[in-house]
């Protein structure tokens, strides 16, 4: 679990959480979608 690992390592950011939420919303109607985290700029 991505969110668990990141929280344990204290590396979770607001931006990462929002990306994950966006992905979950989109994947809800398109189960073929894969999560791809954006590289930090």
């Amino acid at each position, binding site marked *: 679990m*991505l*969110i668990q690992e990141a*929280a*344990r390592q204290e590396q*979770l950011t607001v931006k990462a959480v929002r990306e994950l*939420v966006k992905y979950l*919303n989109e994947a809800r109607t398109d189960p073929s979608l894969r999560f791809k985290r954006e590289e930090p700029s």
Partner: protein
Amino acid sequence: MADVHLTRELLWAVLRGELTPSVVTQVGLEHLMSLCPTCRKEITEFQKERRAATEGDYSRALQILPTLIEKQLPRMEGEQRDATRDLEDLLPLSREERVQRVERARSRFRSSTLVRLLVDESRKRVYESREEAFHLAALARLVVHRNPRMPQSFDLIALATAHMANASRAGGNLREAEDHFSHARYVVTHHGVIDTEILAQVDHLEGSLRMDQRQLEQAEELLTRAAMFYQVSGDKVETVRVLITLGTLYFFRGDTAPAIEATTAALNGLRDNHEPRLYLCARYNLARYLTEGGQYCEASDMLAVDEDLYRGFPEPWTQLRLGWLRGKIAFGLGQNGEAERIFLEVREGFLAQGIGYDAAMVSMEDLAVLYLREGRVEDMKRLAEEIHSILQAQDVHWERRRH
């Protein structure tokens, strides 16, 4: 109809073969007549001459019209009564039995009114039972196929097929939905469907599919055209429904300002006492978009004005979403303690209702952000474990599909 413009969407739709040119001709003529006195005079004269040539004296028609209506009205009422009885006889049966009844009957289960009633039933049930909604739309299509002489048969086939597609979409089978919409679209273009209300429904339902497929540009085109057709057919409530969907589309796309604009336009065409559920939906969405746009005080004022309205919908589904929005507003206004209390309460409510997905979303979208902003590392670790448990309990594994 005169206020409807001849838009690019319409013209492209004809060029792509999605609409017959007669629809555009009708819209264009009405618009032209509303703008140019000469054209209006010429077209009106032409219509008069044509009527006179084909039907003789128009005043004669006016004289016989009341008698005609008097004769037709009982027939129409009878047809409505028979179709309602047909529907009532079909609904208690199993799906197989319904099909058999329709296929075996010689005179019953043949009317276009029954087709529309079945489509309405399909529409009502699409969120409670997708299989049943699909079956009812397919049954409506079967009724048309069993009566080749039915008036407007191709219009009704397109309508029933679009509702079959919509039931597939609501059930998450987007590929099947796509196939049915292709068929509906084929019927629209090759069999001259010009009933604007049916064209609007096909566009509206297909627009919803494109939204689910995240083809937002195409969805916007279809929904805009649907709003235009509903306007042409004079259906104010459906026009409002499409505008609300358009608002949602803009919101998904991250465009808060047009989302607010479309939803405000929808609300202008609606009174709460006519369609209370639709009105509530539009008011809620608008408050949600204002919150997302950082207009927390305006959103809070809206909820205060709508207190009575929300009280009319006490079911958990509505009340939990209202609570969730209150939490977001409190968080936006910097009332973090109050926001956290509401988010936790709402999350428990969703879990109690078995809606784990929304419980997980409250945790991630709001609680996680609140803990991270306040630097509450241990709370965040605990929350991450809880999200994991919720998603596991709901058999949601999307998070693992990372590339």
